């Protein structure tokens, strides 16, 4: 079997397994997997910026929240229908990423991390400051009537799971196409050696900005979908925690791998879910797990597997 065929088999197989899982999983875990699939889309977007292009951002919560509020506010204040609201969330994430990128990409490395962190913090405080229009720190509930698409009520379990799966599958296949496309190769070239890429005639600023906008589109649609599927929009999702989470998902699953973000989100979700039942220091356990990972498998789970055998893993 060719590398391409193996790759397609793996990714389509994952979608098939996730489709089948909804019929076998207990309801608690089925809902968890719905959440994980949406969070994995967020992490896939982060992976496009960090894993493939080498842009270590600490501000992706801003793009996730932009998508969430971009979807939620038009519903809350203007009674928009769900599809236009979701599109507004998608566009809000991408547009804000473009805007931040125009300024932040003048820096690199640690400076880029700090600048993106500052933008995200400014965004969070803006949500609090504009309390009257955003619901402030308390947030707001998305009207259940606005969570019905084509007769499917997204506040019920089966349609919600399918909506999350469709989003996840679409995002994953686009990501797979992207990283195997010529532009995807250029992204990796930027990550590996920016100077050499520039010598070859590529414009690093333009490539990185494009990657960041794509990353923002992923974060935006993930935020919009999370708000719509689970019925709540709140400023907590704009805090630093939600910038760090996708990074952890990507690091755990494997930066620069298409399935890595999903695997990382899945493992991290259940690591917190299970350990929090035993200790209040569950974040310490998460931290310890990451230290072990960085020491013994710095490329993450799938990155290590690719290094040691499955060279074809995209």
């Amino acid at each position, binding site marked *: 079997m060719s590398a391409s065929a193996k790759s397609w088999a793996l990714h389509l197989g994952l979608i098939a397994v996730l489709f089948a899982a909804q019929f076998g999983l207990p309801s608690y875990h089925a809902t968890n997997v719905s959440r994980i699939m949406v969070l994995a889309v967020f992490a896939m977007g982060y992976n496009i910026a960090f894993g493939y292009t080498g842009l270590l951002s600490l501000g992706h919560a801003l793009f996730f929240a932009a998508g969430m509020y971009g979807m939620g506010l038009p519903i809350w204040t203007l009674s928009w229908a769900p599809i236009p609201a979701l599109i507004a969330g998608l566009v809000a994430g991408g547009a804000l990423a473009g805007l931040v990128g125009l300024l932040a990409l003048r820096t690199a490395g640690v400076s880029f991390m700090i600048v993106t962190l500052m933008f995200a913090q400014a965004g969070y405080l803006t949500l609090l400051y504009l309390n009257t229009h955003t619901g402030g720190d*308390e947030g*707001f509930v998305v009207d259940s009537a606005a969570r019905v698409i084509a007769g499917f009520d997204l506040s019920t379990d089966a349609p919600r799971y399918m909506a999350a799966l469709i989003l996840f599958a679409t995002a994953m296949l686009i990501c797979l196409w992207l990283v195997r496309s010529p532009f995807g190769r250029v992204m990796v070239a930027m990550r590996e050696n920016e100077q050499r890429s520039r010598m070859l005639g590529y414009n690093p600023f333009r490539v990185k900005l494009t990657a960041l906008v794509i990353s923002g589109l992923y974060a935006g649609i993930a935020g919009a979908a999370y708000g719509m599927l689970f019925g709540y929009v*709140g400023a*907590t999702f704009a805090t630093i925690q939600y910038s760090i989470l996708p990074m952890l998902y990507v690091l755990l699953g494997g930066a620069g791998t298409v399935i890595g973000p999903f695997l990382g989100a899945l493992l991290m979700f259940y690591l917190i879910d299970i350990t929090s039942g035993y200790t209040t220091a569950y974040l310490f356990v998460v931290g310890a797990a990451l230290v072990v990972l960085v020491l013994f498998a710095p490329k993450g789970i799938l990155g290590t597997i690719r290094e040691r055998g499955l060279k074809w893993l995209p």
Partner: protein
Amino acid sequence: MTKELFGLTPSRRAILKGAGAGLLTAGFAAPVWSQSAPIKLGFQLHRTGIGAAYGRWYERTAQAALKVVNDAGGINGRPVEIVFEDDGTDPKRGAEVVEKLVSQAGCDLVFGPLFSHVVIGTAPRAAELKVPYLVCSEGYHVASGMLNRWTMQPGITDVHAQVSSMAPWVLANLGKKVTMVFPDYAFGHDHRDFFTAAVQANGGEVIAQIAIPPTETSFTRYLPQIPADTEVLYHVMVGPAVLTFVKELGEFYGSGPRPEIFGFIDSLEAVDTASPGLEFLEGTHFWEGHNRVKQADASEHETAYRAAVGVDDNGASLSDAKDVATYAHMFSVWETLHVIKAGMEASGYQSIADRQKFVEAVEAMSDMPASLAHVQGDKKFNGKTHQVFGHQFISKVEGGKLMRVHTTSLEDGMYEDAVDYTSQSF
């Protein structure tokens, strides 16, 4: 010395026998549970995160109330269990926790959260799961109509009523020109809006509103904004910043004249008012939802409650005088558990199929007389808005202790209904 009892003079042996028999009988009198499974109540607990100080005491209060309920025969003759699950004081995790409690642990209902963003983030999922969700949040989000028919707040008065009910006394006793200092986000804005409206309705005037950005760690540049003709300074800072705020306020006014000062105890929950640096609070006033310091006229129920939750007369843990309780709020957990008991018994609750009947039974409640079930005082529940209304207390710091000077009436806090949840479908 042996006293004659009813004409009999018992010997020491007889007394010992009697005491032994009494103990045995007491043992037999303990609830003998039938074979039926226990009622499982899920508790969404702020064990970690910014609500941890509250969570620690909410858990203790829930355990104490559980013991009282089980000692009195449980609910509908069945023992009661509480399953605690930490939500990290995070709305995303909150919704997951409710699902875990209901779907995994098999809880009949969920109760206990305090922080508004967690409640608002969780309530939609509770409604989707069609599980009663009884919050102890004091937020106005229940009665405002933002939430749903499955979400109720029967254990604590909301901030709208709390703030409004304070205004008449503050204006009549402390002054009519008010300057407000509050954090610049939703919690502070609730105070700003409700108190300003109540001040205007009672013939006073809010002459300045000073909003403090949530990232501030020092307040010296805001204090000069307090107008010189301020008669009452209303403050409601929260978190670690409150200690700095009070200290800097003291330095700002020094030993010179200062306005009367009125604050919300939220600023100092779990903080000893006699702490170094808080001397400036002497002679100032606070709202309290429940008097931290045991008052001279404390009822027998209040006394029993205080002992059950392990709090001394100063409002600190019996085992550690430095561990100050979140006393102004935690009674809500105790009272909510007793409302759950009353609601389940009124509806003849047997299984999760009766969840809707339970909600309807709570909605049918109205007067809640002061009792061991309602230790903070009598209350009135509004079934349409799913919100309870209770008395509020104004206390003055005297000798580092909060001593009550005023109790509001139930009517002081009541306002027009903004929603009728009973007209909504399940």
